[in-house]
């Protein structure tokens, strides 16, 4: 299990190291991807030999996180790992002139780790977490050049559209967990009856959103604003395939009605997006429409009751579409644009790249013995064999024809004409990666029989299907190569090029309301912040007021103190000048009086006698008068 876990851990550790060390981002990412590839291939070998692994990690209380390696998971992990490595090699050349390498490689490595986690997840929580993480990585990587005009809005639209579709995933998971009482995926697939139908429909909704099917196909077109390695890895091989992977995982659950719905949705997508691809004026947008279309094929296969055909097509498509995008990236660097008008004749200037591109394109169409022939063959056979062949088979045949048409159109437009070439930097790694993926696109057909045995599924075979497929493919190729686009009415072409968008499409349903809500919440948050600041300011004002009061009180107390001191001084002055003087005056007066009285003390007897006589007379007078008054 540890080896399998390295498939996740390799890219994850690489992403962490890139973010921490911030140097040698490309080397670290390649290292992580290499570790991941080694681990995935070893695990595939082991699983092919019969090994099955499982692991339980502690998660929330009562809700552990489970990993499981079964044949399907091993095959998918190997696909993701190989395509990641080749695209990263390509990116070394494509992003050579880019300034912010750290952010790019960290995002790519992080995405790889999350995708592997989704593939290896065995319980709904981990799957849900990884589902969201890859959406986040997609948002960050689509909007990589966020400072360029027209780069942010597509990322927001893509993110919000898939998130709106993810309601289905959440509700479906809730239904399944509530019905079966466990978050493990295996047991929950045992649900039957109404729960199965409802859950199946909800999960289908999520898968349609993630895979860019009708009616969610708009976001994939807009996602082409990101760098081409991003388009190659995320929006062709892996992320959009997650929708199909989800349906493949829950295939045992789905009742017949749900399968029909899936098939019809897939078929409709094949048709509509095939027409869109035919009308596109931009190479990458053509390839995006093609991706939706091919994924529609996979859903057709699931709807027809053959998951095996879907798996085969998924693996083949990863290589084919990856190669196509890598070639488109080289052309983009050569001409500085992805518009067909600018790309005229670039094939002739870069013939080897054009050869790889053409190889992958023909594989996509279903030209034997390339990989696409076998997988498309299997899908056609499945639709012929299904109970609903009346609805599904025509869609599949038309889809095959359309595939041929738009691939031929693209090849024609790239070959004919002239334009101004710019020197391409980093052609060597780009070319090497393209060669690798093109080789895989050519040779994977040989692996389908072992794949069948490994997965325990059968790829439908028949004789009618291959023939019908070849005829349709040839008709389409001829149509595409021979009939120029000017033959179609312009309004129809414009509408088709816009992806048959009604009004603003899902923008009005999902994107605009969400952004409006986000804006309103931001306003609320600002007001709350303002209120908090106001409280803070109020507190500061209160503190200032308290301080003023305190200063005033201090001044008052000081004033009281001064007043007291002044009073004390006044009292002292009063005491010293007033009372002391008074007492001194009293003393002086007493002394003076004493001195004066002392003069009486003449020492002369007659004077004393006179005084004595006077005093005695007074006394007598008092006595007599008193006696008279008392007696009288």
């Amino acid at each position, binding site marked *: 299990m540890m080896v399998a876990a390295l498939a996740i851990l390799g890219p994850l550790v690489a992403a962490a190291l890139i973010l921490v060390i911030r140097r040698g981002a490309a080397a670290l990412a390649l290292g992580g991807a290499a570790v991941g590839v080694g681990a995935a291939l070893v695990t595939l070998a082991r699983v092919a030999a019969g090994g099955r692994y499982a692991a339980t990690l502690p998660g929330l209380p009562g809700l552990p996180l489970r990993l499981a390696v079964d044949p399907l998971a091993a095959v998918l992990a190997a696909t993701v790992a190989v395509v990641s490595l080749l695209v990263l090699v390509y990116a070394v050349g494509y992003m050579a002139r880019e300034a912010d390498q750290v952010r790019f490689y960290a995002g790519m490595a992080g995405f790889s780790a999350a995708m592997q986690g989704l593939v290896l997840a065995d319980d709904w929580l981990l799957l849900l977490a990884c589902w969201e993480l890859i959406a986040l990585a997609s948002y960050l990587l689509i909007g990589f050049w966020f400072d360029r005009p027209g780069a942010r809005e597509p990322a927001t639209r893509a993110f919000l559209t898939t998130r709106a579709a993810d309601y289905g995933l959440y509700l479906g998971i809730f239904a399944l967990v509530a019905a079966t009482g466990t978050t493990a995926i295996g047991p929950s697939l045992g649900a039957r009856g109404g729960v199965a139908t409802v859950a199946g429909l909800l999960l289908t909704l999520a898968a349609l959103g993630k895979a860019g099917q009708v009616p969610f196909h708009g976001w994939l077109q807009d996602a082409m604003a990101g760098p081409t390695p991003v388009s190659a890895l995320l929006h062709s091989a892996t992320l959009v395939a997650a929708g199909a992977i989800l349906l493949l995982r829950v295939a045992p659950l789905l009742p017949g009605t749900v399968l029909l719905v899936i098939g019809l949705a897939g078929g409709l997508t094949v048709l509509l997006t095939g027409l869109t691809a035919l009308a596109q004026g931009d190479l990458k947008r053509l390839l995006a429409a093609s991706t939706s279309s091919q994924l529609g094929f996979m859903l057709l296969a699931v709807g027809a009751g053959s998951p095996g055909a879907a798996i085969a097509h998924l693996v083949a498509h990863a290589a084919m579409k990856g190669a196509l995008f890598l070639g488109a990236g080289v052309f983009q660097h050569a001409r500085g644009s992805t518009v067909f008008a600018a790309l005229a004749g670039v094939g002739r200037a870069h013939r080897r790249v054009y050869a790889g591109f053409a190889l992958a394109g023909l594989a996509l169409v279903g030209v034997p013995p390339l990989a696409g022939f076998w997988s498309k063959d299997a899908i056609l056979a499945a639709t012929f064999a299904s109970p609903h062949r009346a609805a599904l088979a025509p869609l599949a045949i038309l889809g095959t024809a359309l595939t041929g048409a738009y691939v031929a159109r693209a090849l024609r437009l790239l070959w004919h004409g002239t334009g101004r070439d710019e020197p391409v930097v980093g052609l060597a790694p780009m070319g090497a990666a393209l060669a690798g993926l093109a080789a895989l696109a050519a040779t994977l057909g040989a692996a389908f029989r072992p794949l069948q045995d490994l997965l325990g599924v059968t790829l439908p075979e028949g004789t009618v299907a291959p023939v019908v497929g070849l005829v349709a493919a040839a008709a389409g190729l001829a149509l595409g190569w021979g009939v120029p686009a000017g033959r179609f009415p312009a309004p129809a072409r414009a509408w088709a090029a816009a992806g048959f968008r009604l009004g603003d499409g899902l923008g009005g349903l999902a994107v605009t309301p969400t952004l409006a809500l986000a804006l309103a919440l931001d306003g609320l948050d600002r007001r709350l912040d303002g209120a908090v600041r106001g409280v803070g300011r109020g507190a500061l004002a209160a503190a200032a007021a308290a301080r003023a009061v305190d200063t005033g009180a201090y001044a008052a107390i000081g004033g009281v103190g001064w007043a007291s001191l002044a009073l004390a001084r006044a009292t002292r002055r009063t005491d010293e000048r007033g009372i002391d003087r008074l007492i001194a005056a009293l003393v002086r007066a007493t002394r003076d009086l004493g001195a004066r009285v002392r003069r009486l003390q003449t020492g002369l007897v*007659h*004077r004393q006698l*006179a005084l004595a*006589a*006077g005093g005695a*007379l007074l006394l*007598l007078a008092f006595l*007599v008068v008193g006696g008279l008054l008392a*007696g009288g």
Partner: protein
Amino acid sequence: MAVRLVAVALCGLAAVWFGIRVFRTRSMVRSALALLFAMAALGGLFLALEAEFLGVLQLMMMATEMAVMAIFMVMYMMDPGGLGQMEMTHQKRLARGAGALGGLGAAALAVGLALGGGWGPISAAAPSPAAQNHDLGIELMERSMMIFETAGVTILVAMVAATAVALGRRR
């Protein structure tokens, strides 16, 4: 009654006259003698008032005292005979005023009280001298013994003090 009044008046006037003479003469001896006669007149007055014992006592005591005084006067006076013309008085106005005030005040009091409310019942007769002596002796020895004794001690003290003062320092 009238006889007594006349006797009292005569003796009294004699005493007053001689008292005045004491201070109007320059001669010391004559002053002493005048005082003697004044005191004698007073003794006679007491006799006239039927206080025989007291009158005799007065006469005896005053006679002796005046004699002693005369001796001292001659001893200490600069001009005992009054032959010099030196002025021997001072603060005359004050003295006259005080004397007049005192005398007239007492007189006014006496007359006023007599005229006003009377002194109360006047006893007509006095006890006989023998009875007086007897009763005075009883009084002295019984009720006023304390006073007597105090007076005795006081006399002793005065004698000692006078002697001590008069002796002066021993050389």
